[in-house]
């Protein structure tokens, strides 16, 4: 089962050229739920491709209403942790994009130090996007934190 190359992980714009600040800035200009969700749908559609072969049980994120998969790759040379996430639900993919914009391509210690609750709060602030258990946002964030924790030196 071939895991994606480091280059494939690095090609992900989320967390590198697209930062969470860009997402929040975009939200500022969106007035109603329809525009906000259309934006999240667009984020979801633009999520980098996830390798089919990696949609397997060990990468499956449990506790969501939709199917969610998450894989990671740690580059020791640059001390950077990369993630790819996928879902069969577009809105969940959009939420995954927000997670990646926040936490992708950072060092494990940076991720570890991040206040996840504050991130939830901020996402909740984007009116109508609640971090409920069902949409998997919480599970995704927890897995990212866990992945970082195991790489701490």
């Amino acid at each position, binding site marked *: 089962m071939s895991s994606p190359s480091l280059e494939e992980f690095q090609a992900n714009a989320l967390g590198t050229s697209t930062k969470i600040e860009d997402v929040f800035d975009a939200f500022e200009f969106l007035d109603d*739920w*329809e525009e906000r*969700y259309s934006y999240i749908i667009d984020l979801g559609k633009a999520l980098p491709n996830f390798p089919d072969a990696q949609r397997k049980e060990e990468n499956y994120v449990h506790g969501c*209403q*939709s199917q969610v998969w998450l894989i990671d790759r740690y580059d020791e040379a640059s001390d950077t942790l990369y993630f790819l996430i996928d879902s*069969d*639900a*577009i*809105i969940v993919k959009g939420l995954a994009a927000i997670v990646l914009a926040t936490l992708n391509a950072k060092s494990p210690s940076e991720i570890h130090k991040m206040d996840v609750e504050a991130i939830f709060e901020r996402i909740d602030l984007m009116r109508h996007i609640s971090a409920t258990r069902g949409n998997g946002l919480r599970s995704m964030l927890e897995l990212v934190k866990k992945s970082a924790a195991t790489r701490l030196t």
Partner: protein
Amino acid sequence: MSTQRSVSELRQDFKILDQEINGKPLIYFDSAASTQKPEQVVEAMRAYYYNDNANVHRGAHTLGDRATSGFEGARDKVVHFLNAASRKEIIWTKGTTEAMNLVANGLAPRLNKGDEIIVSRMEHHANIVPWQMLAERIGAVVKVLDVSENGDILVEQLDTLITAKTKILACTHVSNVLGTIIPIKEIVARAKANNVITVIDGAQATPHFKVDVQALDCDFYAFSAHKIFGPTGIGVLYGKEALLEEMPPYQGGGEMIERVSFEGTTFNQLPYKFEAGTPPISQAVGVGAALDYLNSADRKAMEAHEQALLTQAIELSKGIPGMRLIGESSNKVAVMSFLIEGLHPSDIGTLLDQQGIGIRTGHHCAMPLMEYLGVPGTARASFAFYNTAEEVERLFEALAKIQRMFT
């Protein structure tokens, strides 16, 4: 008899429906998961706690008597509701799930290694897992009664499925996913002809139409109060007296005993043998009020109203390109499971909620049925008598809007 109120008047008893969600009037289309409660039920429970609260069956005082009469009075109302032969046949449980576990446990002594339990493919997990656990314990075998493409049970299959080893048949009266009304009377007759005990899940049937357990002639029948406009935390197991007599207690403790000593304990008579510990008293009072509420209403008119909503929804579904109905039996309650091409059920649920509309999405605790249908889950809108034609119209306007958002 006082004049019966019209179905549209009954909606006024459900104050919870009169609110906005995400800035839009709430439309509650998730009654198959749990129904809303009329104020008469909430008021009965409030009055119980304000005026009558005490433990039941043993207080040497007035409040104890009042609590007992409220609690046992509710049991009598259930006897009438199901047309059971006697109050000994009505056991209070936490809900349908506990009822199924109680029966599975109680029938264990009847089973031997290699015996068979038949379960339909459209069962809720509550009517699958207890039988799997029992089978595991005894070394029995669970066999599956199949479902047709449009969502009916293949009743004729029973002719080959039932063997001399078959001891139990567990089947739902109405599918929680498909809405199909199962011909339970016919299924029970086939089982009975082969001395097979029948256990019927009535959780989705009792909210929609009148059930007569003696006419069905089933051995066990269970339902949950919270699905028939009553409180959570309580349900009912009906069982034929002879079988309940024969079954061992499910849990031990107070209430369920006649005499306890370290030399040996004797158990209380029915129905108390199966009701260990202080029972859900206020909830039973709530059940009584819910049944009074249903009895005082015109159930035929409620049923007709729900059916009209379903017919309207099926008609409107034709206007949504790529919308596929899951479960198209000609005989079904007002439950509409569906998929829309290109949209995940969870996306549909999220975006309907933004428009004030609450539906259920996912596998509906019926994973084997989902697997058989080849879908990861469905979106499900379920209607109750308090819903309106205007709400159904708004559901489809909302779905059309969602579809536009994705293109």
